[in-house]
């Protein structure tokens, strides 16, 4: 009777899968790795917090509805961030679940009895994603707890912060593994475009080494990427078009899909926020149009004459029409709005269904990384080639030859600002170059005078310290 009773008493949830009987089929493994990608889509990461770092980096202001709208981003951009800033909390809450989901795959998939190639690929994807998430965290927060296995009550849930050097070594190890086990882009079917590739792993690893100043490794990896078939799109604008997503220039994109009912808010979003959030307010140019992320005059004036990227990136008075509509500077506080990620109403007919992917890593970035690294290695002349490739596509002349290392560095960093504008890259350059001093000087030069050394790292959210008192706060907060 007891045995009968035991069966009688087993009731598993009917609306979710039990960890006990999952991880059996190939499909299970695929679904699990799909889940590890998903936090990338969140507003906590690439749907909002990552691109709003351009506001903090001095390219733009929040704009939006004025007043308290986007207050947390305003505080970040004014460098009055406090430990309860919701945007900062998001940057903790975004990557951590991605790391857990990657860890779940890395722990469970190796023991599965499935196709070995698929298994290797999935573990490679997981390692790429885990490294990606940790790379985000370590740059924003410095030392963070390094957790490499799924946890349960009973485990040490309150670890101290791991030295960032150790975190970086893990990131490098993961990406190195991923680079060998992931297929190249062309080996994926159409349906799988958007998954992590060998090129994405190599490119991201190059970026990690760039952040660490390991220049030769940057150059080597950039060359490796070049052998994998990546090249610049002919048109800069094709990097931000629905019709040309996952293009030959794209190493990695966060995938979005339109269509009503695919989710928009919170963690369910399958659709991109960008067009809606950055569309000019009250303009009727796009579905939505909340006027976020308005480029500053200083930024817009930084375009060299003839830079084709300006018309793609910014809406300005006298610029080309968008979807047959003329821009009015009254739409914006600065007189400018962001254009790069807008989609026409024929593509997204409602605020919640823009399908436009978000670029995380483009070949142009790889070329600029290579240029910067070669320059730092003293090979300034060699560095001109990759830099000019990017300028050429932007309709700009080659840079003058024979620049000093310092002048070339300034050129390449400027080029990065214009080429990668509003793609969430500028802040990482600000904190990276000369250990942040270059970035602070820049911020002060454009009037962001509150910025100080402590702001190069964000505070650990107070909520997290409350839950884990073993975490020490970053200096100055």
């Amino acid at each position: 009777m007891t045995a009968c009773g035991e069966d009688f008493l087993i009731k598993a949830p009917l609306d979710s899968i039990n960890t006990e009987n999952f991880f059996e089929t190939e499909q299970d493994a695929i679904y699990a790795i799909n889940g590890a990608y998903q936090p990338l889509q969140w507003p906590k990461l690439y749907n909002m917090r990552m691109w709003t770092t351009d506001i903090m980096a001095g390219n733009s202001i929040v704009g939006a509805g004025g007043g308290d709208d986007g207050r947390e981003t305003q505080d970040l951009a004014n460098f009055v961030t406090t430990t309860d800033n919701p945007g900062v909390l998001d940057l903790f809450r975004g990557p951590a679940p991605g790391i857990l989901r990657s860890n779940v795959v890395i722990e469970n998939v190796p023991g599965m009895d499935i196709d070995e190639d698929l298994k290797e690929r999935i573990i490679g994807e997981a390692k790429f994603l885990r490294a990606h998430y940790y790379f985000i965290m370590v740059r924003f927060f410095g030392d963070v707890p390094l957790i490499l296995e799924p946890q349960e009550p009973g485990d040490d849930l309150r670890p101290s912060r791991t030295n960032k050097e150790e975190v970086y070594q893990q990131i490098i190890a993961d990406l190195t593994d991923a680079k060998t086990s992931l297929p190249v882009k062309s080996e994926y079917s159409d349906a799988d475009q958007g998954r992590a590739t060998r090129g994405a792993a190599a490119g991201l690893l190059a970026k990690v080494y760039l952040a660490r100043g390991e220049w030769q490794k940057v150059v080597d990896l950039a060359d490796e990427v070049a052998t994998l078939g990546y090249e610049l799109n002919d048109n800069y604008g094709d990097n931000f078009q629905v019709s040309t997503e996952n293009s030959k220039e794209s190493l990695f994109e966060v995938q979005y899909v339109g269509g009503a009912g695919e989710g928009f808010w919170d963690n369910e979003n399958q659709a991109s926020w960008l067009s809606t959030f950055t569309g000019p307010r009250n303009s009727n140019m796009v579905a939505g149009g909340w006027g976020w992320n308005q480029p500053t005059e200083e930024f817009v004036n930084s375009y060299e004459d003839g830079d084709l990227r300006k018309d793609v990136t910014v809406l300005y008075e006298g610029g080309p029409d968008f979807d047959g509509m003329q821009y009015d500077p009254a739409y914006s506080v600065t007189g400018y709005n962001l254009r790069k990620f807008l989609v026409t109403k024929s593509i997204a007919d409602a605020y919640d269904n823009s399908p436009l992917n978000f670029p995380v890593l483009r070949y142009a970035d790889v070329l600029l990384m290579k240029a910067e690294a070669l320059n730092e290695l003293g090979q300034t002349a060699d560095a001109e080639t990759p830099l000019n490739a990017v300028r050429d596509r932007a309709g700009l002349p080659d840079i003058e030859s024979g620049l000093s290392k310092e002048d070339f560095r300034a050129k390449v960093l400027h080029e990065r600002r214009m080429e990668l504008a509003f793609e969430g890259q500028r802040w990482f350059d600000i904190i990276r170059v000369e250990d942040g001093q270059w970035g602070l000087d820049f911020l002060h030069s454009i009037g962001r005078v509150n910025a100080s050394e402590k702001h190069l790292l964000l505070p650990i959210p107070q909520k997290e310290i409350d839950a884990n008192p073993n975490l020490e706060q970053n200096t100055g907060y």
Partner: protein
Amino acid sequence: MKKMWNCTGGENSCARKRIFRIMKLSLFFVTVLTFQLSAVTGWSQNEKLNLKMENSSITEVIHSIEAQTGLSFFYQNEQLKSVAPVSVEAEGETVTEVLTGMLANTDLDFRIIDKHVVIFPAGEKKSELPLSQQDELPVRGKVVDSDGNPVPGVTVQIKGTQTGTITDMDGNYSLQVPDDAATLIFSFIGMQTRQVMLDGQTEVDVTMKEAVLGLDEVIVVGYGTQQKRDLTGSVSSVSDDEIASLAVPSVSDALQGKAAGVQVISTGAPGSDATIRIRGLGTINDNNPLLVIDGVPTKSGLNLLNKDNIKSIQILKDASATAIYGSRGANGVVIITTKRGTSGQSNINVRYSYSTQEATNNLDMVNASQFATMHNEMMANAGREQNPAFSDPASLGVGTDWQDQLFSIAPMHDMSVSYSGGSEKTSYYVSGSILDQEGIVMNTGFKRFNLQFNSDSKVFDKVKFGNSLTLTHDKKYSGAYDVGSTLRALPTQPVYNEDGTYAGPVGRPEWVGDIRNPVGSASVIDNTTKGYNVIGSVFAEIDILDGLKFKSTGGLEANFWYDRSWSPAYDWEPTPEPDSYLYQSSNRSITWLWDNILTYKKTFNSVHDLTVMLGTSAQENRFDFMNGSIKEFASDKTQQLDSGNDEQEIGGNASEWSLMSYMGRVNYDFSDKYLVTATVRRDGSSRFGSGNKWGIFPSGSVAWRISEENFFNNVDFVDDLKLRAGIGYTGNQEIGNYAFASNLSIIKYNFNNSVVPAVVPIVMPNPIVQWESQEQINIGFDATFLSQRLNITVDAYQKNTSDMLVPMSVPISTGYSDIYVPSINAGEMENRGIELSVGSRNIEGDFTWDTDFNISYNENKVTSLNDSVPMATGNLGFDFQPSRIAEGHAVNEFYGYVSDGLFQNQQEVENHAVQIPGNDPYSRTSAGDIRYRDLNSDGVINDADRTYLGNPSPDLIFSMNNKFTWRGFDLSVFLQGVKGNEILNANRIWSEGMAVAVNQTTATLDRWQQEGDMTDMPRAVFNDPNKNTRASDRWIEDGSYLRIKNIVFGYNLPGRWIERAGMQQARVYFSGANIYTFTNYDGVDPEVGANGIDNGLYPVTRTLSLGVNITF
């Protein structure tokens, strides 16, 4: 008096329930009360017997006589056992002759009354006074109980004499009464004695009511019954006549104040169940007691029951009583028993009442011109432009009284019809009822249709089958009413525009507010919930051996409910709704139950009474729901999901639980003096993780009936005194169905514009989660004095909850949600309290006065939350959480700032700790704002200056009922109250905030306006720069109240009036609920829910009703 009477009158009469049990005692009474019996018929004592028995016990002889004659014997076991075996030989002798011979050498005597033979100690036989044959009137009549069933064996005595008779099987009596006799006394054990003046009547029919406090009252204790005298635990009992005439629609409301230690908090919303809390809050989680309806543990609310069908309600309070319900016993158990039929008597009962309901109170709000004046001041103080429409406030007049618009007096009809009866083998009780209650809020209401069908059938000699079946259909309906919005809507806004459409605020929200027309929302939107509920059980009971019974019960509970919400498109401000909208959901919950109970009852050596119960129980539930919604209908006439055109959404889910249990109970009683009860239950629940499925919940209790000790014999005024003590362990398994599961959720990602499924962990798993545990110690005594005229019960308890589920603090770095966190068994809580119940028959006789009184004290404290971080609770929106659960405090104590009067001038502001600083005079603390105490004296008023401000749970709950009867009249006045709790009057945060354009109470007329104004009411200033509306003691009020809860005044029409209509009983009554409340609370009503927050609640209603109750 002893209890060990045996009924041997054949299986049938034994099975006939209470009436016979009471009767045998009554017959014994006949003898001790010592008056002459004058049975009308006496044929059976002349029946001839043929009998030959040698060396047999008297019991065996009696059995044989019964077998031959159909006579029923009544005797006391103990006395017969002391008699030596006898030999009897009879050939054609009468029963009288045989019995006389048989008992000749004993100290027993006998009497034959009708078909009943009573054997009693000879010493108690008294002289028989012959009845005078002169000047006598024949008086006859019928005695029935409150259900209209005849009561046999009632002694009918002529007052002041020792002359009388007893009623026969049909409750009839007849008696020769001397001319000058004024009064008859009707008495019967277990029932209240009645005296009736004759006034020359020759036909006197009497209805007798059960005496509630009798020690013989049968108490349902879970998988069995016990007599009250044998109880060792703490159990309160509420009988049907205590709730019958109350002007409340639901059983839960009717329970209010009826039992010590049981707090019932009503709400006025039609169809909603009251909240029941037994002995305080035992957990920060689910505090609802387990409900058992006719043996079926259920989650269905009490609301589906028709209170006319309820026979009794027992409330098991201490752990020695509740431990038999194991992992579900921790919050107490409410056991409901519905009425059943009685063999041999059929009757029909019809009851109807008509009631009117109204709000107990309205808030005094300012009128239009007062509001405009205040609003102008509010804008001026904030340096903002005033509303031009308010430039001449006086011209605006009174304006709209939104409370008048939303609330009205509402009727309620309550009708039920039942018939019951039965033959020797089968009995039945069938009832149908309709309740139609309109709510005092426009377009709200509740309708309920209820059928009850209970039957018992003796299929074979030793096999009995029976069933209980409750069917209800109910319908709750309402518009999108919002009591809070109604209080806040501006008096300057009309209800309707000139064209008849609903008016709305048009213009700047800071001038006209943004509240949607409360009358419009309550009118055009249609929310209904229709419920279909079945609670049924079928049982078979087999007598296996003498004293050994087996009962198997199969139960089914099926609940179906359908929600529907329809909103047409409308265009009134401030938020026009361009699309019509329909939402429908369908929910189904099915629970089955199978209980098997073996009961063995035996007396050894006359002094050892043993009852053993062993049982198993299995229960399983599945809940399914589906819902769908759609927008944009071409026509409002096609309100079907198929007819909508846009934003179609669909949802659905299911969940399951199961419970498997083994239980046992031993009652041992030595010599009626020493009582021991031990219970144990082993529960296995699907809600616990695999390593943790089974829990054991034991209890033990003892009682000592001191009054049975020899040394107590001389204490005449004490009938019974019993000391009790018990300890037990129970659990609370209401932890959600799947708290243990390490789940993976199915979500979505996409690659290259195609959506793909993804499977991810979201909530930290907690596979070791288990039930919350509770240990409870109870000591108490029951005392009965002065021939049962005074009953006192006192209990004291200590409840310690451990393993209380508290939210786990999950670091974000784990990757699991820090918002959706698992609960872990890490909290602890304590409750201790004292309960006193007193029942007193103050005056007996023609005029009677009874008083029942109870009072209980409870003290609650959270002793551990695992983390010492307090939990913020009581969300009022916008992250405004004014309550806390914190270690060392009672649950949900209010938390906030302490106010300290008003600043009279800017200098006082400067001299005080910094509140809201600034250079802008319009956005900083200014004169007329509230000064808050700087509790930590750091010169800044901030979060650290908050403290605990009050406890929403009362220290004392009490009630008193006084009941008077005189002839056919009865009057009861029921008072009920609580003391020592605080209420957070959240309505005032808006309606006394004077910070935005919402209506204000008249208390704000006393606001600060200039230096020197001596008032507590701060200045009116738009946007409230000083945050005068912050959570503070400003909103905390004393929630104590004393309420005239119910008054019932009834009249039973005299038998001679109603007989011709074929009625046995006819009663008309007037009844009122919530008649008047004594309280210092400023809100609408102090009964505001367990969390003590008064925020736009549906008001408790005052109900007056007129009813008639007829038995045929």
